[in-house]
């Protein structure tokens, strides 16, 4: 077996490879140099298939696909047309703003069919391809949800950035949108329910509003599809009923602001976050880069610091830049806005830098491949 790490950066895709010992990593020359790689992910059904979201302001969206594990790529479909009348969402100042496609934030390959892949886009919508990325169709039940007109962008835009698929039930899908909230579908994405019950966001006029919560990331253990973990724009939360009711589990974290959240592959109650000082100061508290692990599903947290800089670190870790492999003990990987890739091969107990001079890291996905 081998381990493949796909690192999407501001200036290209970098691929690291290792055997399953995870000691000796090779780094390939970048793919798509000069383009922003928002996200890249391999198919769980056929790991030779990798999809990449490639984008620039100049030339817009390109989607690349590999059928040889990332050795070579070909461009596939890049037409993301909203279905029907697009209407408006809210702009930052509360005025109506027309829905406009900008880019793909996240690509989520199906867990059941190697031809199927989902795309979460800005302005927020969910697309699905049934032909390996050649063509894309909008699942417009989400964008046309009754609350859609009131969705407003976060600092990164009105982006659909998180897609969770249940390995047992292809009809169960969760998505998260900044700054609209979390949504659940039980019919494969045709219709949607707001999944924000119990969330509290002080920055909203109504802190308990149904929509408007700036959900930064969601995570789910594949064996427990009704249990979700959330890193919100302040607050780490969990739900055990698919998002109908959330409770805060920030506990003793030094800050409950952050972007990514991850779940251990073999311990459904072991979760990871990387606290950031505040909504304005997007760097670790006290300049100490610390991953926090809870073995109790939140509430009680331990700092993981061995091998990470414990002074002078003022970088951020973005929402898609944390990933865990499925080996035992599991590997934990994250990338910073300063171009560092850190890896742990002992559940997070200790860390080493795999790279220290990459461009700003947007996303990381690890996969154990044959």
């Amino acid at each position: 077996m081998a381990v493949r790490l796909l690192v999407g950066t501001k200036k290209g895709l970098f691929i690291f490879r290792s055997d399953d010992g995870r000691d000796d990593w090779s780094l390939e020359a970048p793919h798509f140099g000069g383009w922003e790689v928002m996200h890249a992910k391999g198919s769980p059904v056929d790991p030779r298939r990798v999809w990449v979201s490639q984008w620039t302001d100049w030339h817009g969206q390109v989607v690349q696909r590999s059928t040889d594990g990332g050795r070579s790529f070909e461009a596939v479909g890049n037409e993301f047309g909203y279905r029907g009348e697009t209407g408006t969402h809210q702009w930052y100042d509360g005025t109506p703003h027309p829905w406009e496609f900008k880019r793909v934030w996240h690509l989520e390959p199906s867990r059941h069919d190697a031809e199927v892949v989902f795309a979460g886009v800005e302005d927020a919508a969910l697309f699905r391809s049934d032909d390996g990325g050649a063509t894309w169709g909008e699942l417009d039940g989400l964008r046309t949800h009754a609350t859609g007109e009131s969705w407003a962008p976060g600092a990164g835009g009105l982006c659909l950035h998180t897609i969770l698929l249940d390995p047992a039930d292809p009809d169960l899908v969760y998505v998260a949108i900044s700054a609209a909230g979390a949504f659940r579908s039980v019919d494969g994405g045709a219709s949607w329910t707001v999944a924000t019950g119990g969330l509290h966001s002080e920055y909203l006029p109504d802190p308990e509003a149904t929509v408007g919560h700036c959900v930064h990331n969601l995570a789910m253990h594949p064996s427990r599809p009704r249990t979700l973990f959330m890193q919100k724009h302040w607050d780490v939360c969990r739900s055990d009923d698919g998002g109908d009711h959330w409770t805060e589990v920030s506990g003793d974290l030094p800050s409950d602001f952050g972007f990514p959240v991850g779940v251990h592959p073999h311990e459904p109650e072991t979760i990871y976050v990387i606290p950031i000082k505040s909504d304005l100061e997007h760097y670790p508290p006290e300049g100490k880069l610390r991953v926090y692990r809870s073995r109790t599903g939140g509430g009680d947290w331990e700092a993981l610091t061995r091998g990470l800089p414990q002074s002078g670190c003022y970088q951020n870790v973005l929402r898609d830049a944390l990933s865990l492999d499925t080996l035992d003990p599991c590997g934990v990987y994250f990338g910073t806005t300063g171009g560092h890739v850190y890896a742990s091969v002992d559940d997070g107990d200790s860390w080493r830098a795999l790279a220290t001079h990459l461009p700003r890291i947007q996303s990381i996905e690890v996969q154990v491949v044959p």
Partner: protein
Amino acid sequence: MSRSVRVHLPGHLRELARTGAGEVEIQVEEPATVARVLDEVEARWPVLRGTVRDPFTGERRAYIRYFACGEDISHESPEDALPQEVVEGREPLRVVGAISGG
């Protein structure tokens, strides 16, 4: 009658379409216009569809400009005839990315 028009594409697009270095040459029916030239470019390299013009509206992307004979023709109608120097292949149509690096 068709004309051979030279087109200078940005480096990102030459790499994406694997056109090789330098300009590309496109056969265009007269009257040669920006729209016809780009239609032919996209027909020859379908991967470029959407990277210069919006794939649905056909409008120039916001960070793209067109130059011919040293003049910015971005804001002229894409249906206007190109300058004779471009039509006769003495000057290229330049597709340029705006100065917005980072």
